[in-house]
């Protein structure tokens, strides 16, 4: 993977939201990372850490306040809606959403949902040709052509998520953001959808950003992983390296808190509880954002923001006192 060219290069990305009374929520604050073609980058963190905002900003559902998003070297961060259309960005990057109930228009048939993008982007010569493509897509995600005339409410959660995936694939994109694509599904169905995403990636040489809170799932599907905390990436690197030898105290605490489906392991494993709640991303003060929950925090941590620095190889960590 390391020899592949970089598809997306994100530099110093910032996205804030005004939340009234002069307060600003720093959802994504000075985040940089790169994704190579054909790679799956997992993005993990607890709710409110900004991982979904990163995903949505990359596919330009949001306009970033600052920073660059280089797609094959072309900065799309500042693109207007017109430029986005002109550059055919939706044909290059797509998104699969978390909630298969809220993300499909209930007034559209499944065929219309999947075919809408084809129509808008004038893909296919005529209606018949587009419908053939829709049928092929349904087939590819494990649904049947008869399903094209049904409405979303006639489907189970797993089937709806397949419709969402078919819609994303319809544009034949290079890059897909999977935002908690399976977290609303039951475990057996989650496995079906997960395996399908992996197969599709191989078949179509796709590049994924997988946003999820389930650390086991991200480990299973990703090549590299980035851990976010309150708008910042605190650790990033090869999956093996980050999971086997985590360096940031937050990553260590996060991994330690995941219950493992092995009774003998759980019987002997004592979780070192991370105290307190995740802080607020509204008008954060100076210093490391994890300092208030960190057992190793020093005066320096409360004063300065630690930069993301290499911890050997592809593995980087943003901490003044990384754990060895």
């Amino acid at each position, binding site marked *: 993977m390391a020899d592949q060219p970089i598809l997306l290069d994100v530099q110093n990305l910032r996205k804030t939201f005004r939340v009234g009374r002069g307060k600003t929520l720093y959802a994504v604050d000075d985040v940089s990372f790169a994704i190579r073609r054909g790679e799956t980058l997992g993005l993990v963190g*607890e*709710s409110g850490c900004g991982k979904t905002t990163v995903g949505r900003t990359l596919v330009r559902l949001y306009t970033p306040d600052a920073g660059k998003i280089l797609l094959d070297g072309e900065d799309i961060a500042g693109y207007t809606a017109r430029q986005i259309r002109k550059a055919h960005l939706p044909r290059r990057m797509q998104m699969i959403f978390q909630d298969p109930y809220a993300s499909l228009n209930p007034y559209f048939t499944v065929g219309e949902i999947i075919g809408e993008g084809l129509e808008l982007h004038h893909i296919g010569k005529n209606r018949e040709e587009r419908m053939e493509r829709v049928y092929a897509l349904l087939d590819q995600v494990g649904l049947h052509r008869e399903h094209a005339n049904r409405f979303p409410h006639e489907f*189970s959660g*797993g089937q709806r998520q397949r419709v969402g995936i078919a819609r994303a694939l319809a544009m034949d994109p290079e890059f897909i953001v999977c935002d908690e694509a399976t977290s609303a599904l*039951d*475990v*057996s*169905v*989650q*496995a*079906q959808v*997960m*395996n399908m995403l*992996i197969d599709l990636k191989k078949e179509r040489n796709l590049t994924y950003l997988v946003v999820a*809170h*389930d*650390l*086991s*799932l991200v*480990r*299973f599907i990703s090549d590299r992983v980035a851990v976010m905390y309150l708008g910042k990436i605190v650790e990033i690197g090869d*999956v*093996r390296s980050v*999971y086997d030898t985590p360096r940031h105290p937050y990553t260590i*605490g*996060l*991994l*330690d*808190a*995941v*219950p*493992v*489906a*092995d*009774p*003998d*392991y*759980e019987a002997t494993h004592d*979780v070192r*509880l*991370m105290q307190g*709640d*995740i802080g607020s991303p509204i008008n954060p003060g100076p210093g490391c954002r994890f300092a208030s929950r960190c057992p190793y925090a020093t005066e320096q941590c409360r004063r300065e923001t630690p930069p993301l620095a290499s911890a050997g190889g592809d593995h980087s960590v943003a901490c003044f006192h990384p754990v060895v």
Partner: protein
Amino acid sequence: MSERLLTVKDLRVSFMTASGEVQAVRGVDFTLDRGETLAIVGESGCGKSVTIQTVMRLNPEPPALIRGGSILYENGSVKAEITRLSDREMRAYRGKAFSMIFQDAMTSLNPTTRVGRQIVEGILHHENVSRAEAKARAIQLLGKTGLPSPESVYGCYPHTLSGGQRQRAMIALALASNPSILFADEPTTALDVTIQAQILSLMSDIQKENHMAMIFITHNLGVVAKMADRVAVMYAGQIVESGTLRDIFYTPRHPYTWGLLGSIPSLRMDLGTRLSSIPGTPPDLFAPPRGCAFAARCPYCMQACLSEDPGFYQVDAGHRARCWLLDRRCPREVEAPVGRDRTVRKAEREAE
């Protein structure tokens, strides 16, 4: 000697809907002893929530209908057949004999009433104490759940608390009258892992201290491994396998349990392995299948599975599974795809 608190036998619960009868729970048996934790696992719609809601008689009847079976609650001199109690009689048991914490604390707490008042209400209902005493108890309970400054939380409305804090407040509410059984329906599913770890550890501590029995409903097998003593796996309204924690994780004997265990990614699984998924979807409980409910999705399905319900086989003391593969007459020898002891030996049919 363990002390039996709850004995559920052949419980059948249906919902009468406009489009027919949904057989949500179809003959469930289990027992619960003081101080122990039973986990009920299974996918959405398998009847796990309906089962415990029926023990507390939380479902309005109609549309719910207890079709048959018994729920016997025993605690010292108290002995009650829950299925026969009237709504009025049930009030003495809810909150006192058993209490429940729900997945979503936001919708389970009353949004228009301050947290403290909701707890005081519970205490005053069951005990003859003054309002001031009840308030002191409520603050003490809130403190016990690890909430910082319980006095201020006492006066807070639920929406002003964070998800973890709300779940702690709901635990305090559930514990208000010192129940002997605590039902927890996906108590940590909506929480982040670090908060989940805090809540699970809190629940374990409280359980030990109060010597309380718990029934934990979850689909997270990691949480099961951490919390449970015994496990019941439910599918399509029935328990398909039950046993000790180790039985279920290390010598599972039902193909559905194999499917569940194989389909979850684990932090400790080898990288590059594929998840085994269970093809298809659960059966329609308007018209449950005649034979084994899992037959249509089971890779080991045989002729007998389609025509006749297998009933339980005794794998080991306390470990039972509902599968024809365990029958002596079954010619097939199979090996479990998961677990430590994978050789599936034939077993005796469990005495009715």
